[in-house]
């Protein structure tokens, strides 16, 4: 009797969560698949009774758009470049933090700070730092900005990083710097947590054997830390494929320098642009995004199964 009563009660406890999940998670999964495979689908048309046939047209047309391929290329490139850089840098910082005693907490707090900021707001700061003011082709700008000032102080020449005349490479550099800056805190936190759990015995043993610091790093630290490294790489890739806020932070919703709209648009940006009018295309793009994330996660898991020790 008691058991039956509990059954009923359990579902009552779960009811609010299941209702919200049903409407805003389960239904979207079904409906997005449906919209993706209905050729040329849009919700306004469906309301008016427009028929849509089943097929792959959304996928083939999306892949054919140069807009979309730009987004896909930007997303892949930014991810493939920023994830290894931020992981390597975070690993170095974590190991350095783990080898010092005084001021450790202080440095740890500083390195975590970027995490607790609004990434769009701080993107605007990066924009301000790299931006020149009053840029006109063929004329001296009014202000060259702080980063260019620092570059010139060290004897370099100024570059238009993000303004009207900026090139692809300069934009890319700024985005990579900002994305890495943003990605560091989480990775440092996880890797340092992993390092602190490593048994000191391994290091003592390596020291007794007379191993050099470099050798200890590659032969003891990295293997022992490999589960954590795999974790930050996987989450890094997933986050990277969903990149959107960093571009918004730097460039605003033009997704590129003022005169070059959409230059740095990403997969998520493409989906969001098509949400209001072309749900079929947006769904196809979202399904492709999911497929990429799923595939990369599987590859990562496969590689880490082979490489991750214990």
């Amino acid at each position, binding site marked *: 009797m008691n058991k039956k009563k509990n059954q009923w009660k359990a579902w009552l406890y779960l009811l609010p969560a299941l209702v919200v999940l049903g409407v*805003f998670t389960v239904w979207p999964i079904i409906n997005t698949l449906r919209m993706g495979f209905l050729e040329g689908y849009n919700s306004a048309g469906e309301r008016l009774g427009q028929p849509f046939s089943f097929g792959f047209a959304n996928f083939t047309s999306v892949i054919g758009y140069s807009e979309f391929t730009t987004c896909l290329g930007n997303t892949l490139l930014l991810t493939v470049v920023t994830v290894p850089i931020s992981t390597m840098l975070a690993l170095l910082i974590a190991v350095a933090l783990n080898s010092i005693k005084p001021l450790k907490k202080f440095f740890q707090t500083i390195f975590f700070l970027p995490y607790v900021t609004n990434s769009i707001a701080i993107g605007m700061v990066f924009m301000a730092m790299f931006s020149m003011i009053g840029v006109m082709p063929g004329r001296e700008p*009014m202000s060259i900005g702080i980063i260019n000032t620092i570059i010139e102080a060290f004897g370099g020449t100024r570059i238009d990083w993000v303004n009207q005349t900026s090139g692809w490479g300069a934009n890319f550099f700024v985005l990579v710097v900002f994305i890495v800056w943003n990605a560091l805190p989480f990775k440092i936190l*996880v890797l340092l947590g992993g390092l602190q759990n490593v048994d000191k015995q391994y290091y003592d043993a390596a020291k007794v054997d007379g191993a050099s610091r470099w050798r200890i790093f590659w032969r003891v630290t990295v293997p022992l830390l490999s589960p954590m490294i795999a974790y930050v790489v996987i989450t890094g890739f997933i986050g990277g494929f969903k990149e959107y806020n960093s571009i918004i932070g730097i460039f605003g919703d033009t997704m590129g320098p003022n005169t070059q709209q959409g230059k740095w648009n990403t997969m998520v940006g493409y989906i969001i642009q098509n949400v209001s009018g072309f749900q079929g295309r947006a769904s196809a793009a979202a399904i492709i995004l*999911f497929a990429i994330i799923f595939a990369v996660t599987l590859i990562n898991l496969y590689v880490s199964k082979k490489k991750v020790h214990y």
Partner: protein
Amino acid sequence: MSDEIKKLNENDASSEAEKKPEGEVLGGKDEIAATAKRQTVKKVLVQIGLYTFLTVMAVVVLFPFYWMLISSVKTQAEYNAYNPSLWPRQFIWQNYKGLFVDVHENGIVIEGVADQLNLGTLFLNTVLVGVVSTILSLIVTVLSAYAFARLEFKGKNVLFALMLATMMIPGELFTITNYVTVGSSGLGWVSHSAAEQVTTGESFRAFLALVVPFLVSVFYIYLLRQNFMQIPNELYLAAKVDGTSDLKYLWKVMIPLSAPTLISITILKMMGAWNSYVWPNLVAGEAFKLVTVGLRGAAFKTNELINYPLQMAAVVLVTLPLLIVFIFFRKYIMRGVSRSGIKG
């Protein structure tokens, strides 16, 4: 400070040197001393290298914060100098004033973004969304986690596994359908076309569209369930013997015992509201503007040029609450974050 490190290392090195003679019978006393000295020097050099590296990285990490703060108290003229200065020649507070009070001339705003940005309303809206969605989501999360941790029912494990599986799907995939769902052909919370009449209660319905879709986080349910399961069953049985009801037990025993997790969830949820951009920008727009949307959308222009000091003042005010929360709840944030890997 560096003396301190040196001392520490010397202690380390000397203790090693003391142990050595047992192993190295052949080495003379002088040789041992020389080796010890070489090791000490090397250790000090490594420590200096580590601190230098960390300091350089810390400067890189902190510089944007510094630039934001310092720019917000500069005059526009000073900021726009060919080579902007690293330290303001003149500190002014007008930029902060300009966020809340406009200077008019012939009925046109010539300075300030108060009217355009409406920072007070943005803050209020965001706090409202944050607080309401946090409270509701805590209630839903606690109830579900309790059911999964303590109650027995058919299909429990299958349901839980299915819920966890949805975590793998990127949220953007939900956004497309949810956009349609909250629109006029669905729940009617948001009108997507400008042609549709703006009706009374529009902001309340936009508010619903901001809060309801994100009430349930499978990850938080998972986190809390793990926490609940660590509480020994004996406590529950003892409470049953005493005739305590399930809800009372949940409220009096389980919730207090899982307070740290609940605090982590609260903070991450509040931060999420503060930082959210995509969804509010898509569905709420002018009807219920949140702080990040307003900040990014405002044009900070004075005399046809972007007024960066004014913009930076706004950025400071948006960033500051987060930093204050971080200072007070550092432990909870870092704990929650290291387990989730999600931002907001």
